């Protein structure tokens, strides 16, 4: 679902035909076609690719990568970025482990507690970006090291391995015997975010502030607050992604996102950028992010099963990001010509 802040460029008089054209030329439609083609290609070559367990495993990874992508998307809306999504996600997961295992708090308290903690770290990022005026790249590069370093210092790099069995059970849960519960969570968040950006005043103000901060300011939107809210949302979504990874492994592990949480950066950018979120801000593609994550994971799973060297997969994902960024640039030019940004 692309949500645009500007009026549509195609006149209403064009009617149904232009609507169909709009869909056919949309980023989401292109991704759906690519996913279907990629899936058909791998399924025809690999007998195990479309087996129930394979589909479940791919779906679960799509769920996790989608949430990581949403976390980055929420701040890309402002024209900024957040390099600390991985560090926030891991820190929140470790707070969850601490609340659950050390304090013995129930999941009903520990889960919201961890998400609020993630939102708090995001708020710190947002406040620092707005108050300092320094680009979010620099601020979040610093906070990535700070959040991760403090987490390692406090936990002594020890994992929380005594979590309630319900946590690991959630990671293995198959809804209807087929669909990963983690994917279902991401789909639910996808719907909630779509409603937020399309139908709520705050969501529209966020988009307006991201598209053109000065114009939004003149219109009475307090852009600083909007940017802080975006970073807080990023923190909350990163925390949710951290909890999903924890559910998958049944333990809160400090290394779950690699050193400094850097292993999340590629999926964090790939999903929203492939999905059609503009890096320059002001336009989100919530459903596109879900599709972007799906495309990346179908390709990754296919290459893994084809036994293309595991080391080449990372290179392939990097090339996909580069292609997506170039496509984003082209799309931005096109939208500007049509007066949409």
């Amino acid at each position, binding site marked *: 679902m692309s949500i645009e802040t500007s009026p549509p460029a195609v006149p209403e008089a064009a009617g149904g035909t232009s609507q169909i054209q709009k869909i056919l030329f949309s980023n989401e439609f292109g991704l759906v076609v690519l996913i279907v083609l990629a899936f058909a290609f791998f399924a025809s070559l*690999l*007998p*195990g*690719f479309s*087996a129930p*367990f*394979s589909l479940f*495993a791919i779906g679960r*990874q799509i769920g996790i990568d989608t949430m990581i992508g949403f976390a980055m998307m929420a701040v890309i809306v402002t024209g900024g970025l957040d390099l600390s999504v991985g560090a926030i996600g891991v820190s929140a997961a470790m707070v969850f482990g601490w609340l659950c295992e050390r304090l013995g708090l129930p999941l009903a308290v520990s889960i919201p507690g961890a998400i609020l903690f993630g939102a708090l770290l995001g708020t710190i990022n947002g406040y620092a970006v707005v108050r300092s005026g320094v680009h979010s790249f620099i601020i979040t590069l610093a906070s990535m090291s700070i959040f991760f370093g403090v987490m390692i210092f406090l936990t002594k*790099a020890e*994992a929380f*391995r005594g979590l309630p069995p319900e946590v*690991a059970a959630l*990671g*293995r849960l198959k809804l209807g015997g087929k669909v990963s519960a983690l994917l279902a969570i991401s789909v639910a968040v996808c719907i909630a975010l779509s409603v937020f950006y399309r139908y709520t005043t705050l969501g529209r103000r966020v988009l307006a502030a991201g598209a053109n901060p000065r114009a939004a300011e003149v219109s009475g939107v307090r852009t600083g607050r909007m940017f802080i809210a975006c970073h807080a949302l990023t923190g909350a979504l990163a925390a949710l992604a951290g909890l999903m*990874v924890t559910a*998958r*492994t*049944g*333990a809160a*592990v*400090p*290394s*779950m996102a*690699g050193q400094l949480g850097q*292993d999340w950066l590629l999926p964090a950018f790939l999903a929203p950028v492939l999905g059609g979120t503009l890096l320059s801000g002001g336009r989100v593609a919530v459903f596109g992010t879900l599709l972007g994550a799906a495309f990346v994971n179908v390709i*990754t*799973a296919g290459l*893994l*099963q084809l*036994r293309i060297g*595991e*080391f080449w*997969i*990372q290179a392939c994902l990097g090339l996909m990001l580069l292609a997506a960024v170039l496509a984003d640039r082209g799309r931005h030019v096109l939208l500007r010509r049509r007066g949409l940004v």
Partner: protein
Amino acid sequence: MKSAIRTLALSAISTLLLAGAATADPETKVALVPGGPHPYFSAWEQAGKDAVKDFGIGAADYRVPQKWELSQQSQLLESLLSQGYNSFLIFPGDAVGTTPVVQEIVENGGQALALAGCLKDPTPALFCMGTDVANSAYLGTKELIKAMGGKGSIAHFTGFLVDPNTQLRIDAVQKAADETNGAVKVIQVIADIDAPQPAEEKINAYLAAHAAEVDGIVTTAWVPAVTAANALRKIGDKRIKMVGIDHDEVVLKAIKDGFVNGTMLQNPYGQGYVGSYVLDKLRSGCTIKESAPWAKNALTAKFVDSGTVFVDASQVDTYVDAMRGITKTLKENFDKDFLACK
């Protein structure tokens, strides 16, 4: 050249071990999956190939996650299960975090052993086979203390903190030092350095500042052993005694030249070779005996020691014999004490 010699040596071990190979299941597809790229596990590749050749197993492939990261390993394991692999030898990326994916392997008709590192009980893995790391570190430290004349200060360089074995090693080194009633002290433990860059950085920096205070070095991970051996060679002072781990050429050469006193050999080849053999046997109708003489460690009550041996300058040229010996004994022990085959 080194790898060719190693391959020949390992093949020689397998040829000599090939006594009594029994009917194998050609449908057995074994995946040997370490936690990430690391030289320790490279012997698993040859071990898998030799197991296929010697026992007629369908496949025994060494597959390495692209990074030393739990989710990468889980994703690879899921993919291998989808590809039809039905037997898994896994170095757990995390003692608990790897359990859910092993559970899924078992639920989908596969079987798994924890190899070189254990999963924490309760676990769906059949058992854990690896070096008794605590015993190896303890024995290595005792050898070091002997070389130091029973007194002095030790620096301990060890592996990744996320490796479930690291804390066991730290505790074992401390235990050996404590038994000297204060004559020997562990004055520094440097962990999380089982990769070239951090090992070079931290070991060299530490020795540059504190070499005079150190009488002995014990290393309990591959890369720190190589780095420390090189550092002692550069310093050129054989006053500092050292006991390393594993069989990297750098460490073996340093033992020959007198810069390192000895090394604790582990048995990664035997782990992969015998592990593949056992999984195939279990798929071919054998079961594990009720009376199997499991050892215990801090993580599991079903542990099998794959063997460790101290090698000094007098044995360094014949270390392949030592590895051959412990692998042969390991396989014989499984046939005799662990497997019940009709």
